[in-house]
């Protein structure tokens, strides 16, 4: 049985597609094309001189150890955000799904952080963890932890990873909860009768059946970690200390808007775009095979 909608008219499908195409063109294709064009030129801030540079901007980037380090930072950060965000959300969803009392209240509370703007989330956490006035850092110091993310790069990276994951948990939670609710109760009951314990039921029934949701969230979370976490980094560490939290997208901003190096910054966004396209293709090709719909 194949589901298929057939349009008899020629223009209706085009008309229906048009608004989305227009938006994608204006907000994606044109800027992306512009970036591609500008990455091939050397130019001053005001665009008064435009000099063709070929692939010079790219060559400069790849001979810069700081840029290569930024790749590593981005990898650690996005894997951290995705793993942390997905696993915590799954655990929360698993328990929230089995709640009997105060269901709505608990769910609302968990979804709440999603309504907070990333920059606000960043500032919120910064106040908790600020080495001189933060409440949590005060506790950490009482426990004997030498907490100072302004100088300790590992702590800084852990902090922004935590904030970014926290911000995304609500979103992941919603999808996991919906996924869990769509798993037929009969399957779980049958397994329980067969003597499968809670843990076993989760791994051999729930987790495989959730795989389409998990896969979708994996793609979304990686893209989130690559791009949407910018305000958090900007509010908390500005890429520091040294370059410990300078992820690729933050470097694009730093070099383009603060450093006014338009060509170099454009080259970086082209590379960033290529990386994300590549990652998404790989995910669809290899990970999706192991997903059962």
């Amino acid at each position, binding site marked *: 049985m194949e589901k298929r909608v057939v349009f008899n008219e020629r223009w209706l499908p085009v008309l229906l597609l048009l608004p989305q195409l227009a938006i994608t063109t204006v907000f994606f294709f044109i800027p992306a094309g512009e970036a591609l064009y500008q990455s091939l030129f*050397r130019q*001053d801030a005001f*665009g008064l001189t435009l000099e063709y540079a070929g692939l010079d901007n790219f060559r400069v980037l790849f001979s810069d150890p700081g840029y290569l380090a930024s790749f590593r930072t981005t990898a650690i950060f996005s894997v951290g955000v995705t793993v942390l965000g997905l696993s915590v959300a799954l655990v929360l969803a698993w328990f929230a799904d089995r709640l009997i009392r105060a269901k709505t209240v608990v769910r609302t509370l968990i979804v709440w952080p999603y309504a907070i703007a990333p920059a606000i989330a960043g500032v919120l956490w910064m106040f908790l963890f600020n080495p*001189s006035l933060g409440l949590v850092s005060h506790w950490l110091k009482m426990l004997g932890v030498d907490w100072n993310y*302004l100088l300790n790069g590992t702590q800084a990276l852990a902090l922004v990873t935590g904030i970014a994951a926290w911000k995304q948990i609500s979103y992941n939670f919603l999808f996991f909860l919906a996924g869990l609710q769509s798993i037929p109760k009969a399957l779980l009951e049958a397994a329980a009768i067969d003597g499968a314990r809670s843990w076993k039921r989760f791994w051999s029934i729930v987790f495989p059946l959730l795989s389409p949701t998990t896969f979708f969230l994996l793609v979304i979370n990686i893209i989130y970690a690559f791009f949407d976490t910018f305000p958090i980094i900007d509010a908390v560490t500005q890429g520091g*200390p040294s370059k410990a939290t300078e992820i690729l997208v933050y470097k694009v901003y730093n*070099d383009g808007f603060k*450093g*006014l190096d338009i060509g170099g910054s454009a080259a970086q966004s082209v590379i960033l775009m290529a990386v994300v396209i590549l990652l998404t293709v790989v995910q669809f090709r290899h990970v999706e095979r192991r997903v059962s719909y």
Partner: protein
Amino acid sequence: MGFKNLTLTLLACGALSTASQAATTIQWWHAMTGPLNDKVNDLANKFNASQSEYKVVPAFKGNYDETLAAGIAAFRAKEPPAILQVFEVGTATMMNSKGAIRPVATVMKEAGEKFDPRIYIPAVAGYYTSAKGEMLSFPFNSSTTVFYYNKDAFKKAGLDPSKPPKTWPELFADAKKLKDVAHITAFTTDWQAWVQVESFSAYHNTLYATKDNGFGGLDARLVFNTPLEVQHITNLQKMIQDGTFSYGGRKSESQAKFFTGECAMCMGSSSSLAAIRQNAKFSFGVAPLPYYPEAKGAPQNTIIGGASLWVMNGRPAAEYKGVAKFFTFLSRPEIQADWHQSTGYLPITLAAYELTKQSGYYEKNPGADVSVQAMVVKVTNKSRGVRLGYLPQIRMILDEELEAVWAGKKAPKEALDEAVARGNEQLERFQKISGS
């Protein structure tokens, strides 16, 4: 019929609004927040009330970086504001964008305004003047580096609160006492790249970059890795290690450590005076920066920070006349004196300084003249300031390298050498792009 009516109404509206808006509007984009924002609006209102031909409209565009980026984007879209406030590190970028800007000296001359560059404080105006002696931008809010200290904490540590450390060795000794006797973290600094390297070099009369710190040409290269600077950064690293220096961040975050009482000494901008006055619940003093007595020529002068007003190209001629009138208005001694006293920025004219002195302001507000005195000495080619392309990036590189030193990951010499090498790559790129 309906369409025709609408057109007529629109036309009538247009005619009416041109009639009532006879004054030429002048857009002024700036980055001033809080009380400074109020002060900027206040200045515009005063000017608008003083005449009816022109109307200055200030608009806040975010922090310095964002304001500059907004101005650039507007210029590229062919809709620049007439006046754009640009921070001092953006000066070289603006100067080398010849088609984008209109030198202030030219604007004044074309408008027939009386303009004498000599009335401005040389150390301030000199920074914004081209090699040919033409004033390119209007110095608006200039600050410089000063030293703040907590007098109560000094007393507690058994130190004389009327004697702030004059030299770095004295500061180290005081720091130890503050820690051992009063149990207070002694020291912190705002804007480390500006205060501890740029201003430090000028104050000790050594070059930050060749070609007179970039004033002499685009082929300037960084040289701030001399033994004196390495020694200084090594000393600061030792302070971090023995707990007498607490690092607070790259910009002005550290002053919070000072006014909350966590740190007893803080170096930063003279324009932080207002914030410190407002927040500190102890008596504090303002003093000149300490120096190394063995360095020849120290103490010289400190260098300026803050921002200046640039006139952008691409506006109707009538607006430039208004801009010139506005700059004349801003240069008035009473306006400048008031600006200086209420904000902590330097007065930009000597007359404003004299006026403030005569009014007895400095007696009532001890410390407020420290910044001015640090600036009114005769500058040398090494101390006039730092004017380099991509200076924001060079500062960022320095911040990154210094953070590696504070964290104990890099030796001071290694970090400064690395900062020089990385910064020079930026300078080479800037030279290539600016093409000369």
